């Protein structure tokens, strides 16, 4: 969980090299997924463990199976926490540059297939800020603003979703 994202990037890169793959959208997707998976699953696991055992027993006592209890009771009780976990992981994934540095590559154009390189917003900021051209640097700032706005919108949205589902939670 505390592993640095560059380690994921380097690991993904090494595997892609051994498979003869080039930096691509697909490579970036897989590495970012691996990066956020432990963050997300750990946060979800923690919140689901907080479910009061009495309500699980209440569900079992009504004849529900473990699966039904998990899907209908535990998930509902933990929903705000699950949403938060997804958002945190999403924020981590969208904002991370190091893991996609080698695995997604960089390009100025939109990728036409999963196997073509792609520019993520953090990578666009990273590469474009390093150029001597003021116009290109301006695009980097635009990308930074966009990234900030996306994260802002997502967190507001998550608050709304979480609030909607908090009303049923049993304390």
């Amino acid at each position: 969980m505390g592993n640095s994202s560059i380690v994921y990037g380097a690991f993904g890169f090494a595997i892609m090299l051994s498979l003869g793959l080039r930096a691509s959208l697909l490579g970036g997707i897989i590495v970012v997924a691996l990066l956020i998976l432990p963050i997300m699953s750990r946060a979800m696991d923690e919140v689901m463990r907080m479910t009061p055992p009495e309500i699980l027993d209440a569900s079992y006592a009504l004849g529900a199976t473990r699966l039904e209890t998990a899907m209908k009771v535990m998930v509902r009780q933990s929903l705000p926490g699950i949403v938060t976990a997804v958002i945190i992981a999403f924020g981590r994934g969208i904002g991370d540059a190091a893991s996609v540095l080698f695995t997604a590559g960089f390009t100025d154009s939109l990728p036409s297939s999963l196997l073509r390189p792609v520019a993520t917003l953090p990578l666009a900021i990273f590469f474009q800020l390093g150029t001597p051209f003021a116009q290109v640097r301006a695009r980097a700032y635009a990308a930074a603003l966009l990234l900030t706005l996306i994260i802002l919108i997502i967190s507001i949205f998550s608050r709304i979703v979480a609030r909607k589902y908090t009303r049923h939670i049993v304390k």
Partner: protein
Amino acid sequence: MDTKPLISVRNLNVFYANTQALKNISVDIPDKKITVIIGPSGCGKTTLLKSFNRLIDSANDITVSGEVLVDGENILDPKIEITHIRKKMGLLSQKPSPLPMSIYDNVAYGRRIHGLGNKKELDTIVEHYLKEASLWDEVKDRLHAPASQLSVGQQQRLCLARGLAVEPEIILGDEPTSALDPKSSQHIEKRFLELKKQYSIVIVSHILRQAKRLADYVIFLYLGELIEHGPAGEVLDNPRQEMTREYIKGIIS
């Protein structure tokens, strides 16, 4: 006993890790009566109750031996389908435990799980059992409000309605009034006295006065052992065992 017993416990032993919670219990629970299990804290009352619907399975590191026969079926048999057993019993826990959903969904939960999806039928069922638990008038205008907004006393009646909605034969109550105020407790007790016409009720209680008000049959446990059991009048008013007498007088508690 005039009627055939509903639950027969034979040589039941329960261990939590190395501690024996129940020691060789054999007892019959009569049908369509209120049976009250009394005894001091930690004597195994709840364990005995939870072995009836095998909720003790949720505990870690538990060993169970013996037989619990419900309608002649040994429910401790690992081959038996546990959801089928649990459908026969409604449970009221110590602290009311509404599910994290609306009042309506709480009552409909059991039936939906068992495959009923028809909205009209569910509406009828929800209304019927909320009335049965005498909660309908208080909640009919806010059926889709979260169950957790109800008062504790209302929550316990909701749990009763939810348990009744799966049409059980037996109602199990684990000190069902201990978290409630006197008025709500009275409410629940009154329901029990009416419900015993149709259901068999088994309650764990540490309140002797409650046992006197409700019980037809009494089981007295002490430190995991069955000390005495019999019709309420005999056990509570004229106990045969010294230990029961002392417990009732309040010497051991």
